[in-house]
């Protein structure tokens, strides 16, 4: 029993505040934003404290209601949870700060509900990460997803349809996951992850376990939008309101990736995943194809946000590929990329949000002159774009580096080639945009006439978080050594 209440605070505070938000909204609408920031601040603080404690004292076991596992729900926080928790809460805080002007511009009348859903979404995501119980994870998964469906549906013309589409797939994914849990329960009689870790090695030969694993593989793949089960993603993220896609894009899929690592590598014995079954092989293939597909289709897009959606699919491919290598370096790369990609995507989607805020179109062709009116914003885009390409010293390079090392360790030359080719593809993608934004005169496409190309920067409340993220993108790469040796290495199973 932990003496610190943080593990429960981090779930309960946003959950309760979500409902308080509506009450507060009836009283004073203007306070909602402050409440949001306050709550997100608390969660960030808590996750920070949790991570610190985990790193100093080892895993935290927090039992809800005092029930002993395997009957009660237990929150187990090891360095992996702690790390992802911190990523999720920090990014959500930063995005939360920026939400105000975007909400006011796009849907001011629905602000209260937005904030409420926002908190629910965060509750779900944090819950997924923090829980040590498989079923509880399902519940949080659905909380996050439901909030996500609703949030996405706020968006522009195609949003409800995209959201419905997302919901069908999401539900199937979640249900598959639930079935997997059910099969595991049949076999082992336990839902607790720590318990299962102990029980499962004896049960691996059973067909039921195999089927459970298959359900997990597909279910989680749908949730994390792994190719070819990604079909929901581009539409949903394109049509979502900018602040929503800024929140959902970096986090939801990353949390999905976390679940994949947790289930496949932690709950099941790692050798089961890499050696007994060709699961790692399949994952690598899916990831490799996904990377190529994502890059290729991103190239074909004309809409900046949609392009980023496809880039995201490729990025998910990276993480999956890292897991699929089934070795220390690969997994390090995958976990590091969860953080890095979270930052990069937040930064990029926030950029899109910022330019939409100032009335710029999202069409890549129409960005001429952007750097004159919004120099700082576009500079942030350039830097995070470079990170996606994998230009050092930005953080994107380091995850790519570990992934390549993993590929070399696993002797997966094709995968290595795909990783490298995709960074070239990314270069084309981002320099295409940069070129338009900075060297706009060349295009013979119709240039939108902007009579005054005066500086018209995004508001500070967006700009500062954007640059905080950008600085993170630039500088975290240099500290990746510290992060890896102090945190990520603790999360990797000993057998790797």
């Amino acid at each position, binding site marked *: 029993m932990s003496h610190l209440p943080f593990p429960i605070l981090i779930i309960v505070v946003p959950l309760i505040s979500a409902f308080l938000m509506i009450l507060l909204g009836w009283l004073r609408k203007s306070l909602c934003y402050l409440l949001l920031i306050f709550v997100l601040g608390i969660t960030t603080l808590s996750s920070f404290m949790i991570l610190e404690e985990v790193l100093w004292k080892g895993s935290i076991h927090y039992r809800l209601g005092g029930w002993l596992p395997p009957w009660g729900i237990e929150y187990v926080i090891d360095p992996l949870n702690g790390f992802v928790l911190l990523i999720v809460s920090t990014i959500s805080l930063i995005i939360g700060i920026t939400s105000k002007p975007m909400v006011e511009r796009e849907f001011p009348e629905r602000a209260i509900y937005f904030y409420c859903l926002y908190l629910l979404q965060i509750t779900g995501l944090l819950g997924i990460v923090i829980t040590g119980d498989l079923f509880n994870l*399902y519940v949080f998964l659905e909380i996050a997803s439901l909030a996500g469906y*609703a949030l996405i*549906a706020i968006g522009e013309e195609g949003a409800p*349809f995209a959201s*419905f589409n997302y*919901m*069908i797939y999401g*539900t199937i994914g979640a*249900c598959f996951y639930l079935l997997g849990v059910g099969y595991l329960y049949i076999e082992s009689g336990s839902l607790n992850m720590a318990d299962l870790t102990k029980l499962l090695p004896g049960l691996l030969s059973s067909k039921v376990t195999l089927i459970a694993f298959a359900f997990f593989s597909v279910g989680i793949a749908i949730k994390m939008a792994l190719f070819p089960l990604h079909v929901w993603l581009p539409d949903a993220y394109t049509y979502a309101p900018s602040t929503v896609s800024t929140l959902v894009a970096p986090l939801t899929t990353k949390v999905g990736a976390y679940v994949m690592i947790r289930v496949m590598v932690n709950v099941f014995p790692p050798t089961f995943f890499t050696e007994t079954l060709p699961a790692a092989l399949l994952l690598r293939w899916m990831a490799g194809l996904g990377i190529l597909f994502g890059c290729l289709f991103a190239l074909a897009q004309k809409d900046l946000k949609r392009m980023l959606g496809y880039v995201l699919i490729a990025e998910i491919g990276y993480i999956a590929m890292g897991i699929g290598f089934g070795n220390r370096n690969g997994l390090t790369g995958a976990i590091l990329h969860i953080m890095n990609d979270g930052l990069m995507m937040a930064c990029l989607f926030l950029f899109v949000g910022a330019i939409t805020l100032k009335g710029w179109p999202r069409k890549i062709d129409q960005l001429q002159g952007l750097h004159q009116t919004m120099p700082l914003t576009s500079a942030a885009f350039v830097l995070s774009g470079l990170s996606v390409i994998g230009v050092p010293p930005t953080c994107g390079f380091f995850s790519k580096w570990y992934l390549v090392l993993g590929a070399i360790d696993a002797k997966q030359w094709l995968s290595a080639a795909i990783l490298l080719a995709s960074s070239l593809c990314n270069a084309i993608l981002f320099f295409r945009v940069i070129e338009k934004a900075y060297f706009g005169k060349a295009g013979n496409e119709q240039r939108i006439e902007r009579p005054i190309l005066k500086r018209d920067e995004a508001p500070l409340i967006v700009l500062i978080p954007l640059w905080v993220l950008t600085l993170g993108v630039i500088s975290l790469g240099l500290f990746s050594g510290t992060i890896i040796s102090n945190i990520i290495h603790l999360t990797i199973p000993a057998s790797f």
Partner: protein
Amino acid sequence: MTIELIIGKYNYWIYISLMMIGFYAMIAKKNLVKKLIGMNIFQTSIILFFISIGSKKGATIPIVEEGVKTIQANQYINPLPHVLMLTAIVVMVSTFGVALALLLLIYRKYHTLEEDEILNLRR
């Protein structure tokens, strides 16, 4: 293929058939409401699956009467799946609710709920 496999595990067969019906609806039906119903059937099948794995022959519901001192596990069916499914039902209901709201939005926008018509409209 023994008769036991069919009869003895009928609960699984039912769950699988329900699930397939749900899938069929989701895949083949053009109408979004029908798709949604398919999804609901699919979810219900999962509930059935969970409930059935918790059941035992001759056991009763897991409510301990007052005053009973010793609990014999084989007299009660496993309570945990029930508990889980209570939660799951809540989740599913809310999903359904959200979905209906979405359909409402879609209908307002396109004045139809037929998927192919919507796709055509957006071309």
